[in-house]
């Protein structure tokens, strides 16, 4: 049947089973929105800003395991997505971004709202496309979805010239399973192109790794974000238990290794626990899965676990030996590789002595009660963890509050923690929470933020209110850009240059102005009452902004300075 490009696009989304799109309209994408108008089966969430939409699509993807889809118009609409695209890219989140550009005959003429968005997003997309011809549209969209979700997932951008959205072409509904049989995907598939496939694991290497792991007396496991993406949490946990090995998580790995597990040593790296970092410094084998050894984990790559045999499992060959030289590695899907390892590691190991050593160091930081009577972050988080339901999805912004939350909460399942680990995007949290709540309407979604981060994108409270999303935002309001201030305190002689936020707004009043519940809280009893209230009033569909006043000098502990040896704590 002949359809115009906009109809074809919508139909391609339906082929994928997409029922939710986040976005923002504008001139170049008007035809697409006109088609959307006729398709009630796709729910469109209109955000306050394209950046919010980009984070929402990302949060939706991370919390549901489905692909996120995000629309924006040309020019400023498209560039407003950029931070969100980069955030998704750094954390390997599958999001398909669809932008429209000016009409083909205007391209390159600096037309109104023209921008080379494929050029802009080249370094932060897994692949991007410009569609110039309506005959190529369906094939391109199908490829985009496959690329976004296969192999190591990541964001993809499809930029469609405006005339394509009104020109007509022959379209036929092709079920998703058949998409591998057409266009470029045929080549990508037949050549096992790394963009869409996970290599067959090298069995010899797996045999050798099994042997090393069984012989190890002091093994340490690192659970990275790849365990989340691969859905390998069960296999990973089984292996950790069989090996009786202390297990650290990276920021991205949170949730993939159950926070209640006795083998958990907590986060590793700059704000890693003493147990994780000390174990890293004395293990004989370091086994890392889906972890790219970022500088926030390794700090000093030359001394990082230099005494240990380093084993790396990753789906992306270009992550092997990139930051840390491995002794042995396997490229492939974590789930598959872990299963193969489990078959080979038959005997349950016992590492009591080693565990005694590792767990003689603290897994959790003890934060002292403050004499000035102010709430501490730990008190806030304890109250939250106790009162909010289990399995509450947690999104964060970036800063101290993010580290406190990841250190404190015991995440039980992959996808429970949604945080910008790689790009460190302040302003990610509320958009991500919107996506998570839309994707999990029955779930409780908690958004942990700081006053700096919240101020960046709090405009999305309008979206939260309109769509009746009962998101609970907790602001760790320290009246400063805490994480930066912490560095200034420790490294810059307390030169608090531009980090003091002695200014409005009153977040509780702001929340009320947006039509959601706003509260300002100064003590834990008040907080507990309000948390109970959030549960009682959940059915009113209103979100919450709970502005918790904390001390300006709170710090994240422990801390190892960037580039330092992992066991050289500057703060414990």
């Amino acid at each position, binding site marked *: 049947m002949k359809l115009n490009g906009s109809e074809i696009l919508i139909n391609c989304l339906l082929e994928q089973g997409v029922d939710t799109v986040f976005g923002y309209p504008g001139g170049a994408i008007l035809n697409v929105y006109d088609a959307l108008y006729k398709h009630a089966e796709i729910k469109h969430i209109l955000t306050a800003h394209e950046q919010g939409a980009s984070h929402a699509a990302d949060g939706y993807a991370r919390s549901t395991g489905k692909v996120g889809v995000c629309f924006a118009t040309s020019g400023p609409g498209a560039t407003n997505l950029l931070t969100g695209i980069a955030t998704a890219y750094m954390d390997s989140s599958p999001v398909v971004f669809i932008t429209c550009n000016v009409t083909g005959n205007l391209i390159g003429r600096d037309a109104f709202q023209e921008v080379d968005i494929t050029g802009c997003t080249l370094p932060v997309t897994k*692949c991007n496309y410009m569609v110039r011809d309506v005959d190529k549209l369906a094939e391109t969209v199908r490829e985009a979805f496959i690329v976004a979700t296969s192999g190591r997932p990541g964001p993809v951008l499809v930029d469609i010239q405006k005339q394509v959205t009104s020109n007509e072409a022959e379209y036929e509904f092709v079920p998703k399973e058949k998409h591998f049989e057409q266009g470029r995907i045929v080549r990508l598939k037949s050549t096992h192109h790394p963009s869409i496939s996970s290599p067959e694991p090298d069995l010899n290497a797996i045999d050798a790794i099994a042997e090393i792991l069984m012989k190890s007396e002091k093994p340490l496991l690192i659970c990275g974000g790849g365990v989340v993406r691969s859905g390998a949490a069960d296999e990973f946990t089984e292996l950790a238990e069989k090996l009786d090995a202390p297990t650290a998580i990276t920021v991205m790995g949170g949730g993939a290794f159950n926070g209640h597990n006795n083998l958990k040593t907590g986060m590793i790296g700059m704000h890693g626990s003493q147990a994780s970092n000390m174990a890293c410094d004395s293990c004989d084998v370091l086994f890392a899965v889906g972890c790219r050894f970022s500088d926030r984990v390794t700090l000093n790559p030359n001394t990082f676990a230099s005494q240990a045999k380093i084993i790396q499992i990753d789906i992306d060959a270009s992550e092997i030996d990139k930051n840390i030289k491995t002794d042995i590695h396997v490229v492939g899907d974590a789930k598959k590789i872990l299963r193969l390892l489990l078959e080979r590691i038959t005997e349950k190991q016992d590492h009591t002595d080693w565990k005694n050593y590792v767990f003689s160091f603290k897994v959790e930081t003890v934060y002292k009660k403050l004499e000035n009577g102010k709430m501490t972050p730990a008190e806030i988080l304890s109250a939250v963890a106790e009162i909010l339901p289990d399995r509450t999805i947690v999104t964060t912004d970036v800063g101290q509050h993010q580290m406190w939350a990841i250190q404190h909460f015991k995440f039980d399942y992959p996808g429970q923690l949604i945080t910008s680990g790689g790009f460190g995007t302040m302003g990610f949290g509320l958009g991500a929470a919107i996506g998570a709540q839309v994707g999990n309407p029955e779930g409780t979604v908690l958004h942990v933020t700081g006053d700096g981060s919240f101020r960046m994108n709090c405009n999305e409270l309008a979206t939260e209110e309109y769509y009746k999303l009962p998101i609970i935002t907790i602001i760790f309001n320290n009246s400063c850009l805490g994480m930066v201030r912490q560095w200034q305190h420790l490294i810059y002689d307390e030169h608090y240059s531009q980090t003091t936020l002695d200014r409005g707004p009153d977040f509780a009043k702001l929340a009320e102005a947006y039509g959601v519940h706003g509260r300002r809280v100064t003590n834990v009893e008040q907080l507990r009452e309000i948390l109970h209230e959030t549960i009682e009033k959940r059915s009113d569909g209103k979100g919450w902004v709970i502005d918790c006043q904390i001390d300006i000098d709170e710090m994240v502990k422990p801390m190892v300075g960037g580039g330092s040896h992992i066991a050289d704590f500057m703060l414990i």
Partner: protein
Amino acid sequence: MDEQNKIRRYTIVTSMDNEAGVLSQLAHLFSRRGHNIETIAAGWTTDRKIMRFTIEIFTDEAKMKLLCDQLRKLVPIHYVEILEPQKSIRRELMLVRVNAADRATRNEIIQIANIFRGSVVDITHDSLTLQIVGDDQKNSAFETLLREYGIIELARTGIVAIERGELKKHDDD
């Protein structure tokens, strides 16, 4: 210095779908990962829908391996290969116009060109334009020799390279 850190010239051959933007994707990856392209040459393969690029960079083995893996992730890429210097043929074409105002000079230059198997492709009463094909060393040597006559303009294509065919072994060898 161990082998992994030794910096040398690498010749990378890759083929990509022939579509808008692939060159910038390719070039961008090099610069984004901190590599400086020495030469790059591109053209069709037997299939007009596929472009073959020859790229040369100076780097070490570890970085080279990483770069290859990063290149292989680009969706339009078909394959990426490193050509070993002993097992490959590297050539570039160079066009050079030199001053040649009198007969004696012209003869001298033509003689030099003959030794290098170059050819004269254009001649005027005060200049000669020569074409030469060779690897970068040969072409640079040629350039050096011509310098004393005064080079007016010079253009090099950048290296294209191909793997040598395998010699079949005879049973009685």
